[in-house]
């Protein structure tokens, strides 16, 4: 079965049809997506500002990271699951969309950078990076995550 045929099968599955066709289905799922985005980026911003000592500098970096971690992970699960529902409910809007492809690319980059690079600097046994390195890491992390958001907004405006 081709990918497109598989998508069509899934998007005609009853719960997905319910989300797409009920009056408040899509707004509800979109609201969850937005709530997840708010929480996810809030924790990412807080962690990066702590990394470069622009905020929360009274608290240890690994402690701040540890406290934010469950909320970041929870928010990632919320944005991805709601995003998947939005995609499956209206796949035609996304399969050929250039901003959507960019968004997925940036999302992979952001997730990789968060767990493979940023976490290395914020783990309990890590040494705080020199200031310029911290700034570079924070800039890359914020650019990737906010890039995901902007690319997501662009889906509505650019084909």
């Amino acid at each position, binding site marked *: 079965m081709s990918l497109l045929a598989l998508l069509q099968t899934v998007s005609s599955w009853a719960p997905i049809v319910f989300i797409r066709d009920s009056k*408040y289905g*899509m*707004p*509800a799922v*979109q*609201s969850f997506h*937005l*709530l997840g*985005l*708010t*929480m*996810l*980026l*809030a*924790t*990412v*911003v*807080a962690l990066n*500002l702590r990394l470069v000592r622009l*905020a*929360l500098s*009274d*608290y240890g970096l690994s*402690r701040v990271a540890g*406290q*934010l971690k*469950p*909320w970041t992970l929870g928010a990632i699960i919320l944005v991805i699951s709601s995003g998947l529902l939005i995609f499956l409910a209206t796949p035609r809007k996304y399969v050929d969309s250039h901003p959507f492809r960019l968004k997925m690319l940036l999302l992979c980059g952001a997730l990789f950078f968060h767990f493979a690079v940023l976490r290395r600097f914020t783990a309990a046994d890590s040494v705080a990076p020199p200031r310029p390195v911290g700034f570079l890491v924070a800039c890359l992390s914020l650019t990737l995550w*906010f890039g995901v*958001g*902007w690319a997501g*907004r*662009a889906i*509505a*405006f650019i084909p």
Partner: protein
Amino acid sequence: MSLFDWCQWLQHTRFATTITESDWLFPLIEGSHILTLPISVGMILIADLRLLGLAFCSETTGRIVPSFLRLSRIGFPIMFLTGGLLFVTQAGKAYANPFFRTKMIFLLLAAINAAVYQKLFFPKMADWDSGRGAPPGAKFCAVFSLALWVGVIVCGRTMAYQF
């Protein structure tokens, strides 16, 4: 001139139509409004969660909550500016939109809730840390704040489906 007439007039001013007709101004303002959510509402949510003992429990309330409230002050001016501009471009349509009206009521209640918190609990926060944490009244404010801000986001997103 009724409020509705004024909204209609506002939406058709040269200023509003310049934004609406521009290829990039409206998307830029709307995108900024949405992507400032984490730096405004998001920071308030984290502060509320701390008051409820659900996040940052290892840190003292009296110090960590003000840190997050300070961060939210970066975002809120941008929220009000971009939100105001979005309203100007769609004032006539927003006027009758039930979700827009609900969002405004929630925002008003959130402001009152924040003012009450500021007056009653903020000055005493330093005393909480030796004891059991925030008193029930402060926790009630936090629950109310969480519910209102979630409501603001839900109404804000849903109103766009009715335009």
